[in-house]
Every structure is written in structure tokens, then in C-alpha cells.
């Protein structure tokens, strides 16, 4: 089972639509899970797994693979959907999410699921692990790259900024972090909970190279990653402005869809909307 690399934004958009449909179906079937932050990150994750990363889904432990750490571990459905679509495990296993006999834990577990590089779920920890992986690559003289995906609410965790210092101090230019800045967290808008304005400036002050993008503009995400590859001596953060629940209109920008599963009729409505958005594309 090899992964088909997708070269064009159009192909990647279709893949992202498939992944969004998986997210809706999985969380609906589980009657539990986090759709909003999975849908906001779908375009970023799709570009990483189907265009950017050097991986071998049929050889998940290949030492020279690039690494992806989902620091905002509650977005596990979008990671699982990408892993299945990439060929790490059969797509029909996605529907077992959160079940007692499933390898798809509620939050990512590296000892359960092929392709998961770090167990996450307790927020704030993934960037440190990604730094460790990037340091290991440097020690090995290897060219492999490391990617991490953070939430904007997650930036309230102090450990993120410890790791931000580590990455800059050690000049980890093989590390690229995304902030899925969807502006919402469980108890409300990030701006009201603990204002997190000027995310890019904060990282810049810590010594990072900063790229700001529309997190649903596939071409812009690709360009940001190409820019990160060119930057030497500094880690890159891509601050991606996103819409929580993106692609399902009744979920978009709604705090309540952070950790609520859609009911069967809502699943059908969401799938119909995603299909329509693809104008009869190849989404299954």
C-alpha cells in the first residue's frame, strides 16, 4: 500500500474533502469526539500527508521518515483519517474510533496506531517532543523533517513557550510548527478566555521564522512549507487562520462543536454539504 503523492491544489482539495467526510462519519459513529478542531485542521494535515512529508505508510517505522506530532491531540479524527487515506491502515477501520476494541484511541496513542509518532492529548506537550525528534535528526546528520500542529488555545500552556525557546536556541530549522488558529476553545473565544493576539509576533520574539496564511488556502499552505524548507538556522511557525468546523456550515465558528458529536441526521446533512462543495468530486 503506497501513498499517492498529490501535486496540485485541486487534488489536495478533493483529498481534504474526503478527510473531512471521514471526520464527520467517525465522530458521528462514535457519538463522541472533537469535530470542530479536526475540520479546521483538515487542509493543513492533508497537505502534510499527501504533498509535503517523506513517509512510507507501508513501512511506518522507516527510520528516515519525516515526523508529524499532533500536539492538539483532540483532533485525532483528522489525523486518523489522513493516516488511513495514506495507507497506514484500512479506511474501513476509521469507523471504529473510540470503541473498546479499536486501535483508534480517543486521543493519539503511538503504541496503538501505526503512523502516530507521539502520544498526545494532554495539551502543550507535543512541541517539546517534536523538538526532541528534530534534535535527534540533527545528531544523526539526517535530512528528515519534523512537523507539529498546535491549537491557538493550546498556546495558553506554558510548556509550548519552553519548547519555543528550545527550538530557537538550538536552531532547529528542520522543525515546522503549525498553529491552527481557529479562535475558539472549549469555554469560548480564545480572545475572551486568555487573549492570544499577535501569535506571529510572539513566536518572532522567541526567534522563530513566521509565516501567516489562510489555513484553508491549499496553495498558501504549500508555499509556506516551501518557504520553511528554505529558512536556515531558525524553526518556522506557520500561523494558519482557520475556521473551526470548516466545511460544515452549521458547525462553523460554533464553540459548541468543539467536542460534540453530530447526530445521524446531522451527519447526513454534513456529508451532503461536503459532497456538494466538491461539485460531484470523488469523495467516497
Amino acid at each position, binding site marked *: 500500500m503506497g501513498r499517492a503523492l498529490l501535486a496540485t491544489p485541486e487534488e489536495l482539495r478533493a483529498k481534504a474533502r474526503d478527510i473531512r467526510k471521514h471526520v464527520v462519519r467517525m465522530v458521528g459513529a462514535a457519538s463522541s469526539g472533537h469535530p470542530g478542531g479536526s475540520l479546521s485542521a483538515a487542509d493543513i494535515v492533508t497537505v502534510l500527508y499527501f504533498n509535503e512529508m517523506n513517509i512510507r505508510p507501508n513501512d511506518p517505522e522507516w527510520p528516515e521518515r519525516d515526523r508529524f506530532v499532533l500536539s492538539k491531540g483532540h483532533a485525532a479524527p483528522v489525523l486518523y483519517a489522513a493516516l488511513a487515506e495514506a495507507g497506514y491502515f484500512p479506511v474501513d477501520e476509521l469507523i471504529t474510533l473510540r470503541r473498546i476494541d479499536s486501535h483508534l484511541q480517543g486521543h493519539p496513542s503511538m503504541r496503538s496506531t501505526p503512523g502516530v509518532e507521539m502520544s*498526545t492529548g494532554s495539551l502543550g506537550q507535543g512541541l517539546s517532543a517534536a523538538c526532541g525528534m528534530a534534535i*535527534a535528526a540533527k545528531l544523526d546528520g539526517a535530512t528528515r523533517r519534523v512537523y507539529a500542529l498546535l491549537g491557538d488555545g493550546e498556546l495558553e500552556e506554558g510548556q509550548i513557550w519552553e519548547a519555543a525557546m*528550545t527550538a530557537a536556541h538550538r536552531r532547529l530549522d528542520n522543525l515546522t510548527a503549525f498553529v491552527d488558529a481557529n479562535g475558539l476553545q472549549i469555554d469560548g473565544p480564545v480572545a475572551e478566555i486568555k487573549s492570544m493576539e499577535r501569535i506571529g509576533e510572539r513566536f518572532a520574539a522567541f526567534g522563530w521564522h513566521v509565516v501567516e496564511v489562510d489555513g484553508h488556502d491549499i496553495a498558501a499552505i504549500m508555499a509556506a512549507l516551501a518557504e520553511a524548507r528554505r529558512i536556515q538556522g531558525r524553526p518556522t511557525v506557520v500561523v494558519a487562520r482557520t475556521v473551526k468546523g470548516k466545511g460544515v456550515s452549521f458547525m462553523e465558528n460554533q464553540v459548541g462543536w468543539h467536542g460534540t458529536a453530530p447526530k445521524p441526521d446531522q451527519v447526513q446533512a454534513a456529508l451532503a454539504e461536503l459532497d456538494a462543495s466538491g461539485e460531484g468530486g470523488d469523495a467516497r
Partner: protein
Amino acid sequence: MTEMIATRAAYGETLARLGDVNPSVVVLDADLSASTRTAGFARRHPERFIQMGIAEQDMIGTAAGLAASGKIAFASTFAVFASGRAYDQVRNAVCYSKLNVKICATHAGLTVGEDGASHQSVEDIALMRAVPNMTVIVPSDAVQTAWAVNAAAMLDGPVYMRLGRAPVPVIYGEGQEFALGKAQTLRAGNDVTIIACGIMVSQALAAAGALAEQGIGARVLDMHTIKPLDLDAVLTAAVETGAIVTAEEHSIIGGLGGAVCEAVCELHPAPVVRVGVRDQFGKSGKPDELLAAYGLTVDDIVGAARRAISMKTAAGRTI
């Protein structure tokens, strides 16, 4: 006179030598490398020494990432910070992920001394023992520390090793047998068993000598591995001696004493008297003064042994 060496010193020397022969070993420290003695490794292998600054949570998370990329990551700071400040990182990033991170925590227990309660971990064994996948080792002297460090490097999975600041007597000689999870019997005896770890092992040996002068035969076990606990040794002690004393520089809650009580209750109920810190924080003072103030002396172990034996005898009369 017995040679005195701190277990942290033996750790630092062993680690530096381990780095010579094992290129997978990397070492992280959080601005305490002179105290934890990882500085020796840093001098010998600067490219594999990762100074994390005062950021223990980030250190443990970074160690997890290194281990996930095939490294054997030794991470050191004071025990109170390694087990407490970074508990969630130890739990989720290291133990849940079952990664090759060896947390070698120094300045454990009361004998940190003058720094006082903020720096005296009396609950770290309890915290680390409760986490699934964790192996917990508390070496008693410099020689055993070297064995334990090498064994930890060979073990596939997380390790918490508890090391001390103050010099302690050398108990072992080269060439003696050591295996993780297997208690070392240092003295034979059938009236009572003293199960000790860390700096309390040498105290236990002294107590056994004092008890012998009173005609009491005390078996002494060095329980260097708190988890997995040597259940055979505990069961045999309960069956053959019928009375047990535990001795540790740690709270009586959740540490060696807790682990032994859990095992004895399930396997072969017998009186157990725990010598340890009695649900208190530490305070400033000299190490010897603190051990006396908190009831961790040779005399305290002797008294506990006599109590355990009298409980055994009383229980025998009621049957």
C-alpha cells in the same frame, strides 16, 4: 574506615563511560548539571549533551521525542522537579508512550539538607511507582548505582532512578550479582526482615548488627528496585520471618513501605512496621540532624524491628 561516595557521583561517572561505548545515549539536564553530575558526560560528549535550561517539563517532553527517534535519553534534575514539576510529561509523553527515557533524579529525600522542604522530595517514589510502564530504582551505594545505570540503559522502557546528594557508605564490591527486580540479601536472619532502599540500606545493616547483640536475627534485603517489586523475596520474608520492617528516606505513604504492605497483605499477611517520613514535609538542617528529627536512624529501625516482632508474637498467642 568505609569509603563514602554519593550515588549521584557514581551516576555521573557511569554515565560518562556509558557514553563512550553507546553512541545512542543522549543526556538532558535542566541547569543543574554540576549538581546532578551530568557535567562529566557533557565534557566528554558535548554534542550529545542537551542543556534545556530551567524547563523541566520541556526537558522530559524533548527526551521523549529523542527516544521516539531511537535515542536512549537520560534526563536529570532534582527528584522533586523530575517527579513533581514534570509529572504529566512523565506520565503521558514517556510512560504512556513507553519510551526509552531514563529519568535519573538526584538530591532525593531529606538529605538534600539545608535547602529545605521545597527541594526535599518525600513523595517521588509514590508518584513514579503509580504510573504504568515505569520501572523505579533506588540504589543504595555507588557500586550498585553503576550497575543500575548500565541495567537501565539496557532495559527497553521508562526508568525512574532516585539518587542522593550526600555521600553514603560503599556496601558492595565489584563482581557481585545484580539484577533489576531482584532484591539483594545482605544479611541472613529469621526473626525479622528489614527491607530497605537507598541510603537506609546501610542504616539497616547497622540496625541488624545492633539487633544481633540483643539476640535477634534480622534478615536485611536491599530492595533497590521498588517496581517491579521482588514479590518472591517479600513473600519468603513474610513466611520465614513473620515480621517485616521497611526503611526508606521517603514518605511511609506510597513508597517502599507502601509497596511491601500491599504485597504482604495479598500474599501472606504479617506485621509490617514502616520507618519513613510520617506524612510531613521536610525542613532545613544538616542531613544527619534531619534523619534524626524524622525518625530515620539506626535506633528507629531497631525499635521498629522489636515492635514488629512483638506484634508477631502477640498474633501468635491469639491463634
